[in-house]
């Protein structure tokens, strides 16, 4: 990792640390203070947006491990999120099990099902693998819709609020602490995973799976492990989504959602920890901005009702296209450039 001018590491431990300078620690502290006090100055609406961002970050981080690190293209991520959401919903509603049991089970079942659908990855890759993951999405949603006695079918299922040690997470503020807390853990896990033997094996497989196999990396094992981790995190996100919305039906998990997740990690920057975070924040805030812009324009300029609704999809599409043309390495690359320039400041030349 690059360091500011004049700073060196004298031990291996220090060299391996994620936060190494006082500036790093100070910024981390400031970030935690901001996050910790956010419910004090945000209203329910913006907290709900923050909660959606947190849930999306968890799911996108899982997909980034799968696609960004290990190179296994998946367009069925919303299906795996659905598995987590329904697992948690069924366990806490029908069986009245504690939320934490639902949460962990959601991750595990999602991860297991991800492994099942990941088996084709040993034989196929690229677009062929993408198609097999689309099949996963279709099969999962079909089963959920038709297993009515358990999932409620098309009518859906009510999900009770999350409850841990007597604390019920009903308000947007309390849910924010739960969701952001888990999101931070997930980001920390993903950051460290990339620096382990497993993470390096993922990257080797992504860059050249044949070469990786020659070097002794067990492709079958590591590819399935990537599916398990990616889908485990999707399951965790699904569980949180279910308890946040309070009601689940499969309308929440369309194929377009899966495609959106791929778009998010491409815009954020594949193969970096910060990428999914930036991508999610960018996309979710863009959506909010657009949803605010249309009615505001109409009321300001006294336009006919519904006149401006078309600008939403239009702006959204244009921004994504421009982004892909101008910064295909994603926001994470911009962030790296910004950090590099700051690192040399005021002597950057």
């Amino acid at each position, binding site marked *: 990792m690059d360091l500011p001018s004049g700073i060196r590491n004298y031990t291996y431990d220090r060299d391996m640390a994620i936060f190494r300078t006082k500036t790093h620690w100070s910024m981390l502290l400031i970030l935690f203070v901001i996050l910790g006090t956010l419910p004090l100055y945000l209203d329910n609406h913006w907290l709900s947006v923050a909660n959606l961002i947190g849930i999306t970050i968890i799911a996108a981080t899982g997909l980034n491990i799968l696609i960004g690190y290990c190179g296994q293209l998946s367009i069925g991520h919303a299906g795996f999120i659905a598995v987590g959401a329904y697992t948690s919903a069924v366990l806490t509603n029908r069986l009245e099990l504690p939320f934490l049991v639902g949460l962990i089970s959601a991750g595990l079942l999602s991860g297991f099902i991800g492994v099942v659908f990941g088996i084709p990855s040993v034989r196929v890759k690229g677009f062929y693998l993408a198609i097999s993951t689309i099949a996963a999405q279709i099969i999962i949603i079909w089963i959920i819709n038709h297993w009515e006695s358990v999932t409620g079918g098309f009518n859906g299922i009510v999900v009770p609020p999350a409850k841990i040690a007597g604390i019920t997470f009903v308000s947007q503020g309390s849910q924010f602490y739960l969701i952001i807390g888990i999101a931070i853990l997930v980001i920390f896990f993903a950051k460290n995973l990339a620096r382990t033997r497993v993470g390096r094996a993922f990257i080797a497989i992504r860059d050249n799976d044949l070469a990786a196999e020659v070097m002794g990396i067990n492709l079958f094992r590591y590819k399935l492990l990537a599916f398990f981790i990616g889908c485990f995190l999707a399951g965790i996100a699904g569980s949180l989504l279910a308890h946040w*919305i309070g*009601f689940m039906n499969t309308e929440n998990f369309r194929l377009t959602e899966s495609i959106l997740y791929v778009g998010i990690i491409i815009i954020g920057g594949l193969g970096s920890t910060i990428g999914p975070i930036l991508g999610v924040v960018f996309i979710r805030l863009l959506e909010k901005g657009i949803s605010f812009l249309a009615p505001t324009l109409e009321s300001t300029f006294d336009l006919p009702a519904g006149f401006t*609704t078309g600008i939403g999809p239009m702006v959204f599409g244009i921004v994504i296209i421009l982004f892909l043309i101008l910064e295909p390495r994603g926001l994470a690359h911009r962030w790296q450039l910004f950090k590099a320039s700051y690192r040399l400041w005021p002597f950057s030349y």
Partner: protein
Amino acid sequence: MKFKKVLKIASIVCLALVVVVTSIIGTACGGSTDTDKTVKVGFSICYTGVAAEKGRPMGDAKLDCIKYINEELGGVNGYEIEVIWRDNQYDASKAATIINELMDADTLMFTTNSSAMMTASAEIANRQAFPGFAVFSTPALTNPPQHIYAQMPDYGDDWAAFANYFLENIWAGTGKPKMALHLLNNSTGAGAKAAAEALADDLGIEIVSIEEHDATTISEIDSITRIMAQEPDILYISSTPQPTSIIIQNAVEKGLYPGVTIGCGHASFTSVLVELAGADAEGVYGVFPTVNWDDSAPAMAKMTEYCQEYHPEHYGNMDYITSWAEGLIVAEILRLALENAGIDNLTPQIVEEQGFKKLDNFDVGGLHGPVSYTPGDNRLAKSVRVFQVQDGEIVPITGWVEAPKIPYQFD
């Protein structure tokens, strides 16, 4: 490289402009929200997304109606109705953030067009006792009744009304008529299925086939083939216009129709269906809870005037009628709450108790059946009519048919 540089500069300028314009407009609009002569309501509208074919005319209609109420009637009891509307894009997670936004914005109640978007908002609203109603609804939304209401009879009521009409007026055979269901794979289809499961045996109808389709289907030849093998007497479709038109066209192509009787639920039975299916839709029956365009109804003239002035493209679309009526119901709920509780005491909970629950035979300008609250039944209007496509027009063939509450058992 030069092209990329120009593109980069252009995009940065565009983004900067969007940010600047948004903030200027946002600041400019800030003052109007603080006036004390307004009552706020929230509309979560699926203007874009896969249900835009219904969301757009409905969104336009309700906003036109509120404009009419504010500008020509002077608002409600002298208070202007201030609308905060958001496009939910028919996306559940967006609908969940929108319902929080509407609650934060101190709106007194909210509405959604579709049952799907209401299901995404309902639990959050119910937990906060924040009242709202869905224009189109599914039985699961109001069973058991909480703080969410249905403007009109639901998709299950459609099925029951059509089944009764068929048995009394069309069926001339012996024994039980055989019915095939073709259902959209969401709550629109699930509502009809729930009613069929609850009532078919009692009515004496045999359900021989249940097929599902997607909102974006482009061919239903396979499912029609399977249905034909069961030799049904009736094909009942509970879906939206586009997939319904595909099913009808495929039924004609395969020779299933004419021959069987086709009935449709109200989510699909609009002028859009007739436009899409063309001559193939001739003779198809449908259930709809409103009057038709150009029918004699007190509210028809003003609604037609606004539609033709602001949104002539929706003229003839019955979804416009339903949401014009929605605007009138919102105004009536607010009027009752204002009269019963006074402006200073208005909260969402007061609006539910003194507005929603005080509705008693409110006449929606004759656009649909009277609107009443009945304890234990959160459907506000409880009657439908049966229509038929005749010479390319949707023509009513019955008067108002009462839709009794069906005893559903949902979790």
